[in-house]
């Protein structure tokens, strides 16, 4: 496959310490004063022109947050975060309502261009060969919502989506334009009281994406959001809400990058998915926040709450994640299998190198009858990193016929890193069948030498072997993302051997 070759080329072009997305965009921004208070919450709500119910919702979350403490159970270590030393709102200046791409600050457009994200309404061209029987990717369209620091700067293909009845817009707009939908579903999967970071997010989230797919509609294109943190000392707290109404289908992609900075930056997002009867949501993430430098300085703290609710019968939610960035990742995309015959999937590739710490996994909560879930996790630890899979599979008393299959494989590169597997399994009824498999292996010197004897360099060999290791998960990604992810995997493992 030419992608491997391409990966290798790219790896060669960059230095070990060079994070490809580490540049900063110099634009005027408007910020709220540093720190957090009721005033700041009101400021954010006001900036967004929110109705009063939204402000009250935020304030309630804020007051609750004040009573909460940070979770400490994850296998991650970091100095205490000073929540008063963060900007909770930053927006690119001239802040007027943008109606077309031409009105967006050209510097921002350039940023997204540099990141390889097509904001111009063009089809995505990645030079990918289409699989037999699949559409030519050059003609495939992807609608993009771009979030820059705290605000959404552009959403593409709006008109075409509207024709299909699909609502895809910044959540700040949805709060104003579709309050009935937002009020009904916001916080219905991740309640404002859920956990420290989710509660903080509920109080201060500034933007994110909103998707509603009406009954029986198959969303005509992939939807995607790119998150970019640009400002210094700024936290990013985006909020995503996706509702797939009865019998609908949507595939959603999320990508993230940030500039290279010495200080740590906080990213605490909340994603809520709701699938009604017979609906399906496929949610894919390629997370590539700045991981910090080779000494472990800087990088993003990625403390994210993602949860899907299979609310209707026969509904399905599938999470696929490729996690390569961030100094610390704390993230457990989960499924509540409420509807009878509903199913949840979690496919994960989590790569840690340097001093990165990953504590990630999933929860599959079986509540309905004959629900099924599947977990495939591939953890790769290199350098001095720590990589933990943490999973919970439970079957409620009434969840007769619940089935789960879990396979967790860890691959170690070098001997200064660690991989850990922490699975919890709880079946409250005897008809549940839960299967769990786990392996941990070291990348074998003999395998590497075999590849090298056939002409590959050490780095090429590692890239090839790792891409083979994660193949089952890569196949779950939409094609454009799979190619991108494959490159990213090799790049993140640079300098991990020899």
């Amino acid at each position, binding site marked *: *496959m030419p992608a*491997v*070759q391409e990966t*290798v080329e790219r790896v060669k072009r960059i230095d070990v310490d060079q994070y490809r997305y580490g540049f900063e965009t110099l634009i005027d921004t408007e910020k709220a004063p540093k720190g957090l208070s009721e005033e700041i919450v009101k400021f954010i709500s006001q900036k967004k022109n929110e109705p009063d119910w939204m402000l009250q919702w935020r304030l309630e979350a804020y007051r609750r947050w004040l009573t909460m403490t940070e979770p400490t159970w994850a296998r991650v270590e970091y100095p205490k975060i000073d929540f008063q030393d963060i900007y909770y709102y930053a927006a690119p200046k001239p802040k007027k309502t943008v109606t077309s791409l031409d009105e967006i600050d050209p510097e921002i457009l350039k940023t997204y261009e540099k990141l390889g994200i097509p904001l111009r309404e063009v089809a995505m061209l990645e030079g990918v060969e289409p699989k037999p029987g699949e559409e030519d990717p050059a003609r495939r369209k992807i609608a993009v919502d771009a979030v820059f620091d705290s605000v959404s700067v552009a959403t593409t293909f709006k008109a075409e989506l509207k024709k299909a009845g699909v609502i895809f817009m910044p959540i700040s707009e949805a709060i104003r334009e579709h309050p009935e939908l937002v009020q009904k579903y916001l916080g219905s999967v991740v309640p404002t009281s859920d956990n420290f970071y989710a509660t903080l997010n509920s109080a201060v989230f500034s933007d994110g994406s909103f998707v509603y797919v009406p009954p029986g509609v198959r969303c005509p294109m992939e939807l995607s959001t790119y998150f970019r943190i640009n400002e210094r000392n700024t936290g990013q707290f985006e909020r995503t809400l996706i509702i797939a109404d009865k019998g609908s289908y949507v595939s959603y992609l999320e990508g993230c990058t940030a500039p290279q900075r010495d200080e740590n930056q906080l990213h605490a997002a909340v994603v809520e998915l709701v699938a009604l009867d017979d609906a399906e949501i496929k949610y894919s993430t390629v997370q590539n926040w700045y991981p910090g430098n080779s000494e472990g300085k800087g990088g993003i703290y990625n403390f994210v709450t993602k949860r899907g609710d299979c609310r209707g019968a026969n509904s399905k939610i599938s999470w696929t994640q490729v996690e390569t960035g961030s100094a610390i990742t704390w993230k457990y995309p989960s499924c509540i299998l409420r509807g009878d015959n509903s199913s949840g999937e979690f496919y994960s590739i989590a790569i840690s190198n340097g001093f990165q710490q990953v504590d990630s996994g999933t929860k599959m909560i079986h509540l309905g009858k004959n629900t099924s879930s599947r977990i495939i996790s591939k953890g790769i630890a290199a350098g001095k990193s720590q990589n933990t899979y943490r999973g919970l599979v439970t079957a409620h008393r009434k969840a007769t016929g619940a089935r789960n299959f879990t396979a967790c494989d860890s691959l170690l590169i070098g001997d200064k890193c660690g991989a850990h597997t922490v699975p919890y399994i709880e079946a409250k009824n005897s008809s549940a069948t839960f299967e769990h498999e786990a392996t941990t292996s070291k990348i*074998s*010197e*003999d*395998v590497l*030498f*075999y*590849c*090298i*004897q*056939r*002409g*590959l*360099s*050490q780095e*090429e060999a590692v890239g*090839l*072997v790792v*891409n*083979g*290791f*994660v*193949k*089952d998960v890569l196949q779950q990604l939409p094609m454009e993302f799979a190619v991108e992810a494959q490159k990213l995997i090799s790049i993140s493992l640079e300098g991990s051997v020899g």
Partner: protein
Amino acid sequence: MALLEVKDLKVRVEEREILHGLTLTVNEGEVHAIMGPNGSGKSTLSHVIAGKPGYEVTDGQILFKGEDLLEMAPEERAAKGVFLAFQYPVEIPGVATMNFLRTALNAQRKARGESEYSTPDFLKKVREVSKSLNIPQDMLKRGVNVGFSGGEKKRNEVLQMALFEPSLCILDEMDSGLDIDALRIAADGVNALRSPKRAMVVITHYQRLLNYIVPDFVHVMSKGRVVKSGGKELALELEESGYTQFEDAA
């Protein structure tokens, strides 16, 4: 100029000397067989030539086409035409054989400053070679050597050899684990690659393989040295009387 010149080579593994001054000269177009008891250092020699890490060369030198081979990175040696068919080929799960072949071939071509193969040219070439080796196309879709039988793994080595067109082929016990038919197919594949520009070093324990791949020279290795060299009749002699007669010489 010889294709390969190993001169007075001394090699240590983990503080223990395994090769104690080994000398071997291979010219273009020649086929050399190396025989010798278990543990005499045959695989060690092949690994050192290919550049496997973990071996310390304490004395002597290896010249390949007149250049100092020990100065080259192992992937550079591969690109320059050194090919080792492994005694124990490894499995690489999730990496389709076809993908592996193409990635490796293009890496070598690139290192030599040659253009990459186009997809149709590449596929055509693989199809030709795999057909002659009786390798079904389905096998090429599977992970490298994953679930291959012993015979299939060895045939996959010969397939790569045919594809990469190296100038020096080292075959480490390619006959082990092969049934008679598989042996014939693999040996035919190797024979098809014999050419005046290419040399082969065939490591084996059994005269039988040499009935198929007839060598120009036979060397007997014992305790880290070549203790006797001769023509193909030396292999027959060994088959009759075993290695004990050479133990003293070492």
